């Protein structure tokens, strides 16, 4: 067993109604300790109302080398953006 605590990624929800955002990472022995550490490291200035932690090793990530095939095909498909509609002023900010 490694003597190093595992790495956890921390997600904090700033206020009710918003989604959790990734704020950083930290080390902790287990999930409960990770939440306590996240509380102390990332919510000292009233940043959050909810904390999620997930072990960094449990996250599957896309590979930077694949960015061509993954993302570039969307570049010339402007019709996927809803920019061809006239939005009535009454709708307000979209």
């Amino acid at each position, binding site marked *: 067993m490694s003597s190093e605590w595992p790495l956890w990624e921390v997600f904090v929800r700033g206020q009710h109604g918003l989604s959790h955002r990734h704020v950083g990472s*930290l080390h902790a022995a287990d999930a409960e300790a990770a939440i306590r550490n996240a509380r*102390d490291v990332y919510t000292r200035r009233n940043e959050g109302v909810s904390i999620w932690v997930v072990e960094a090793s449990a996250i599957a990530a896309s590979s930077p080398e694949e960015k061509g095939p993954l993302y570039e095909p969307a570049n010339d498909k402007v019709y996927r953006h809803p920019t061809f509609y006239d939005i009535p002023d009454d709708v307000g900010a979209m």
Partner: protein
Amino acid sequence: MSDPLFEFLCRMGDNALVLGHRVSEWCGVAPALEEDIALANTALDLVGQATLWLDLAAEVEGAGRDADALAFRRDVWDFRNLLLVEQPNGDFGQTMMRQFLFDAWHRAYLAALTDSSDTRIAAIAEKSLKEVTYHLDRSAETVIGLGDGTEESHRRMQTALDRLFPFVGEMFVTDEVDAAMITACIAPDPRSLRAGFDSYLAEVLAEAKLIQPSGDFSHKGGKSGARHSEHLGHMLTQMQWLQRAYPDATW
């Protein structure tokens, strides 16, 4: 005896101040970044509580002093904190054991103070209780994690418990200041909190696989001010250094 309400408020304020300063001594040197920040947060909570208690003490005293004057202009014999909180940090395990033993008492005592007949005291207790509930959650889980951890962490936590347990009894001593507070319905009888403390302690120590030392010998003299340990005077030379060297210094 001076005004028992002033004495009582100094006891509350000095516990928070002295432990807050002790815990702040870890700032920058704790064993992990996460623990360093958590300890600094705890220290700041306690120093904040000390400010509230000592400001009220100064107001009750009515002698023109404020929280800063009480914190930085009194010498060791005027401090009214429990002997437990002035004990040196030792290793991280000893610091967390001291924190746990104090937090368990502190939470129960503050919870009772939220019903105080003095609304100013009830208000400070209510604010502090939220912070201290978190302190206890963290310190109890740390005691369990290290007690039931590796062979070395277990040994260190048992050593810390054996060393600090003789300071537990003072938290539950009732003297004439307490009697005056009980009569005025300002504060609870410390003795009434012992049974709840003992059963909670037994629960946490069992989970931490630690053995509670036998015997009920207890060091006393901190909260009465009769006899502090040699450690408090040394601590104050650090904490009060600026005011001693440069009285009334301003930015």
